[in-house]
C-alpha cells in the first residue's frame, strides 16, 4: 500500500481540532489562522487526490484496509470512486471558506473552530468509509460538533433547533444501525463469516423482503438527512438558527451525505427494492421540489427562503438518483456539487448582509443595489446559477436530471420542470424586493459594500459556478464510470433495463427511427 492519502485527509482536520483546543486560552487571535491553515492543508491533500485519481476504471481507488476485529468482520476500509471524490473535494473546498466566514464568532472561539474541524473530519470520513460500521460511526459522531455549532453559536431559538436537528437525525440512523447489523449477520450466513465490508456485501444475495426492509431503514436515515419530503421539518429551523458558517456547511455538505448514502448504499445494496420503489421515491422528490419552491416563495425571511430552496433543489437530486438512468444519476451527482456551491454562497451572502443589518426580513431591505453594487451583482450571479440559467452550473445538473428522469419517468420530469420555473420566481422576486428600486429603509443607506475578505471568500465559488457551467466535462468524466457501475449492477441483479435515448418505453425502436 502506498501513501494512505484518504486517512490523511480524514485525520488532518481532526488533528487540527485538537491543535486548536490545545492553543493557549489568551491567544484567541491564533485560532482562525491555525484552523484555516489545517483546512487548507486538507484541501491541498484533496487536490492531490484529484490529481492522482485515475479517470476511466470503475470501482474504488486509493483503498486502504486494515482488519480490526475478525469475529465481527469490521475493518478500517477506505476508498473513493468518482462520486465520493467529488464530495470530498466539495467538503474540503467549502470548509476553508466557511471558517474564513466565521469572523463574527467572538465568544468561545476555540470551541467553535475545533468543532468545525471535527465536523470536517467526520464528514470526510462519511464520504470515504467503505465499511458500514465505520461509515455509521462517522455518520453519527458528526452530529455532536454540528449540535454544538448550532446550539452554542446559533440564533435565538438555537437550543430548540439544535436538539431537533440532533434527534431527527439520530432517529433516522437508529433504524439504519439495525439494518447494518442485520445485513452483516445475513452476510455471515452466506459467506460463513459476518462482514461489514461494503465491497464484500455487494457479493451477497439478499432476499426480496430483506431488501425492502433494509431499503426502508437506510432510506429513512438518508431521507431525513437529504431532506426528503415529508422528513424535512428539521431543516428550516436548523438552517435559520445556525451561524452563517454552520448553514453553509449544513446546506453545502451535510445534506449531500443523505443523497450520497442513497446512491452508495440503497441503489447498490438493494437493487431490487430500488427498482420497485423508484416511483415512490421519485414522487416524494417531485413533491419536495414543488413544495419547497412554493414555500420558499412565500417566505418573508431570506434565510428561510434559501433553506426551503434547498428542499426543492435536493428534490432534483433525489429525482435524478431514482430516475435510474445514466443521465439522471450523473445529473444528480453534479447537482449535489452545484447546490453545495450556490446555496453555500447564498448563505454566505445572507450572513454578510445580516452582519451589517442584523435582520433577515426581506421587507427590511430594498434598493440595496445602489449602495452595495458588488454584493448585488454577486447575489444575482449566484441566484442565476441556482435557478439553472445557462451557462452557469445549475443548468448542467438540472438539465441532466430532467433528461434522465424523462427517459424513465416522463410524468415526473414534466412536473419537476415546474420547480425550475418556481426557482426563478422565488429567487428573482427576492432579488427584486431586496436590491432593486429606491432605498426604502433609511438604515440601509449607509451600508458598506463587500470588503476584501468577503470578496476573497466568494470569488472561488463564483469561479467554480462559471467553470462547471461552461466546462462540466471533468466532473462528468469522473462520475461517469461510478454511475455506470451502479446501473450495471442494477441491470445484472434485476430485470430492469436502463432506458437509453431512442428506446423510449412503449415505442418500438423501429418506429422512432425515420
Amino acid at each position: 500500500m502506498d501513501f494512505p492519502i484518504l486517512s490523511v485527509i480524514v485525520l488532518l482536520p481532526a488533528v487540527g481540532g485538537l491543535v486548536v483546543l490545545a492553543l493557549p486560552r489568551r491567544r484567541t487571535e491564533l485560532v482562525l489562522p491555525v484552523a484555516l491553515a489545517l483546512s487548507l492543508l486538507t484541501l491541498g491533500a484533496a487536490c492531490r487526490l484529484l490529481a492522482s485519481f485515475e479517470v476511466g476504471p470503475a470501482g474504488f481507488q486509493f483503498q486502504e484496509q486494515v482488519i480490526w476485529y475478525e469475529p465481527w468482520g469490521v475493518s478500517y476500509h477506505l476508498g473513493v470512486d468518482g462520486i465520493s471524490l467529488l464530495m470530498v473535494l466539495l467538503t474540503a473546498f467549502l470548509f476553508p471558506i466557511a471558517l474564513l466566514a466565521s469572523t463574527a464568532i467572538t465568544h468561545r472561539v476555540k470551541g467553535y473552530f475545533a468543532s468545525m474541524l471535527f465536523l470536517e473530519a467526520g464528514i470526510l470520513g462519511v464520504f470515504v468509509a467503505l465499511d458500514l460500521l465505520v461509515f455509521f460511526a462517522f455518520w453519527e459522531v458528526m452530529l455532536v460538533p454540528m449540535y454544538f455549532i448550532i446550539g452554542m453559536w446559533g440564533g435565538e431559538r438555537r437550543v430548540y433547533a439544535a436538539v431537533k436537528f440532533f434527534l431527527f437525525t439520530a432517529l433516522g440512523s437508529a433504524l439504519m444501525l439495525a439494518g447494518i447489523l442485520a445485513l452483516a449477520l445475513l452476510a455471515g450466513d452466506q459467506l460463513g463469516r459476518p462482514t461489514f465490508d461494503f465491497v464484500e456485501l455487494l457479493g451477497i444475495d439478499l432476499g426480496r423482503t430483506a431488501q425492502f426492509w433494509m431499503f426502508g431503514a437506510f432510506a429513512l436515515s438518508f431521507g431525513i438527512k437529504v431532506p426528503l419530503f415529508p422528513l424535512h421539518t428539521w431543516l428550516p429551523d436548523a438552517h435559520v438558527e445556525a451561524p452563517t458558517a454552520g448553514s453553509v456547511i449544513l446546506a453545502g455538505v451535510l445534506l449531500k451525505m443523505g443523497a450520497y448514502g442513497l446512491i452508495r448504499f440503497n441503489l447498490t445494496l438493494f437493487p431490487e427494492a430500488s427498482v420497485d420503489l423508484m416511483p415512490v421515491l421519485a414522487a416524494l422528490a417531485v413533491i419536495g421540489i414543488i413544495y419547497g419552491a412554493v414555500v420558499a416563495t412565500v417566505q418573508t425571511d431570506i434565510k428561510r427562503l434559501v433553506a426551503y430552496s434547498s428542499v426543492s433543489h435536493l428534490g432534483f437530486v433525489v429525482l435524478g438518483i431514482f430516475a435510474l438512468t445514466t443521465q439522471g444519476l450523473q445529473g444528480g451527482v453534479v447537482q449535489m456539487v452545484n447546490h453545495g456551491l450556490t446555496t453555500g454562497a447564498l448563505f454566505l451572502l445572507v450572513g454578510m448582509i445580516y452582519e451589517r443589518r442584523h435582520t433577515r426580513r426581506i421587507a427590511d431591505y430594498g434598493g440595496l443595489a445602489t449602495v452595495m453594487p458588488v454584493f448585488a451583482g454577486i447575489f444575482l450571479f449566484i441566484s442565476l446559477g441556482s435557478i439553472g440559467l445557462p451557462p452557469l452550473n445549475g443548468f448542467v445538473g438540472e438539465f441532466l436530471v430532467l433528461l434522465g428522469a424523462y427517459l424513465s419517468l416522463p410524468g415526473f420530469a414534466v412536473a419537476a420542470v415546474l420547480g425550475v420555473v418556481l426557482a426563478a420566481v422565488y429567487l428573482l422576486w427576492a432579488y427584486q424586493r431586496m436590491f432593486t428600486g429606491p432605498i426604502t429603509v433609511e438604515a440601509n443607506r449607509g451600508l458598506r459594500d463587500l470588503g476584501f475578505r468577503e470578496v476573497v471568500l466568494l470569488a472561488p465559488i463564483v469561479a467554480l459556478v462559471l467553470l462547471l457551467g461552461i466546462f462540466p466535462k471533468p466532473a462528468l468524466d469522473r462520475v461517469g464510470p461510478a454511475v455506470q457501475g451502479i446501473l450495471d449492477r442494477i441491470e445484472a441483479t434485476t430485470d430492469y433495463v436502463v432506458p437509453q435515448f431512442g428506446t423510449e418505453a412503449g415505442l418500438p425502436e423501429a418506429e422512432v427511427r425515420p
Partner: protein
Amino acid sequence: MNAFLSAAPEVALAAAVVLLLMVEVAFKPRPAAWGAIAGAGLAAATGFSAWQWAAYRGADAGVFWHQTIAVDGFAAFAGMLVFPLAALGLMSAWRLAVSQGRRGAEFVALVLLAATGAHLMAAAADLVVLFIGLEIFSISLYVLAGFTRERVDADEASLKYFLLGAFASAVFLYGVALVFAATGSTKIYGSGGIARYLAGTIIFRPGVLLAGLALLLAGMAFKVSAAPFHVWAPDVYQGAPGGITGFLAASAKVAGFAALARVLTAALGPRAADWVPAVAVLAAVSVVVGTLLAIVQDDVKRLLAYSSVAHAGFILTALVAGRGGLGDMWFYLATYAVQVLGAFTVAAAVSGDGAGRSPLRHWAGLGRRSPWLAATMTLLLLAMGGIPLTAGFAGKVAVFRAAIDAGYLWLVIVALLATVAGLYFYLRVIVAMYLSAPEEAEGLPCGPPVGWGARLVLAVASAATLVLGVAPWPLLDLLRHALPL
C-alpha cells in the same frame, strides 16, 4: 489450584476489613491509614483475580469448597472489574468518608465488604452461596445509602432500599427453594448439579421449576434495577449521599448481572427456551420505561437512575443471546459501570458529596464555571447515549449484534428507538451545562471544588470511555474467554 487460593480475593478483602476495623479501634489512625489498608486489600484481591484469570480463562471452571465456589474466566473477570471499581468508588467518595469523622472507617469497610459480596455473587457455584454473597453485598449497600444519617432523604433512601431489597432477597430465596424442589440440588456444577440434571432429564411437569426460575429472575432483576422491579432505584440514587451513589449504581449492576448471567446460562442453560423470552420482555420493558421516565426528570441523579434502568435493559439485551452474548454483556457492563461511576462523581462535585439531590439548575452554565468537569460529563453522557468513538457505542453495537444474531430483531429495534429518545435527556443535561443563559447560573459557585480522588476517577473514566470507544477490539477479544463453564 489450591482450594484456599480459589477464595483468595474474598479472603484478602475480609482480612483487610478486619484489620481496618481493629486498627481503627486500637490506634485511631488518620484517614490515610484507612486508604492504605483498603488500597492494599483491593490491590491484593485484584491481583488474585488477575492470577485466576491468567490460569483459568478459556478453560473449564475449577469448582472448589464442595462445589460452592467456581474459579473461571467469568469469576476472575468479575473480580478484575469489581475490585478496581470499588477502589475508584472509594476515591470518588473519599471526601465524604473523611467528612464522617471516625465513622469514616466503617464507611471504607462497608465498601470493601460490598466488593467482597459482589465478587462472591459472581463466583458462586451454589445458589445458597450466591444468596450469601447477595446479602453481604446488599446489606453493605443499604447502610452506605443511608450513611449521612442526619439527612432525612438519606434515611428514606436507606429504608426503602432495605425494605424492598429484603423483599427481593426473599423472592430470590424462594426461587432457590423452588429450583431445589424441582431439581434436587442447589449446586450449579458437578454430577448432581442443576445444569447436569436439567440437561439430562425431561421434566413433564415443569411448573415448580418455572416458578422458581421466574422468582430467581425477579429477585435478580430487582438488584440490577430492571423494570418493572426498578421503583427503588430513583429514590435510592437521589437520596444516597452524592459521593457513594456512583459505587452503588455501578457495583449493583456488575454484581447483579454477573450472578444473573451465571444462573441463567450455566445453571438454567438447558432451559434457555423458557427464560430467553422472559429476559427479552424484561429488556424491552426496562429500556422503554427507563427512557420514558428519565425524560421527565428534573434532577440529574434521578435522571441517571432512570437511565440506569434503561441500561439494565440494554445489558439484558445481550443475555437473550445466551452464552453467545456473555462477552458482549461483560463489555457493556464494564464500560457502563465506569461511565455511571464517573457521571455520579461529577454530580457529587456539582451538588456536594453529602447531598442527595442534584437538580438540573445546579448544572446551569457548568461549561463556563468548570470547563473540565462539564467536558467530562458531556463525554460520559454521550457515551451513555451511544455516540460513536465512545465505549458506549461499541457496547451498544456489541449487545445489539448479539441479540440480532439470536433472532431478536424486534428487541433491537425497540432498544434503538429508546436510544434515540434517551439522547433527548442526555442532551438536556448538556444543554443546561453549555447552552443555558448566563443569568441562570447566577449564585452558583464558580468552579466547584473537586477532590484529587474524584479527579482521578474522572480521568480514568474518560480515558477508558475514549480508548475503548476508539479501539474496543482488544477487550472484546479478551472477553470471549469470560464464559462460565
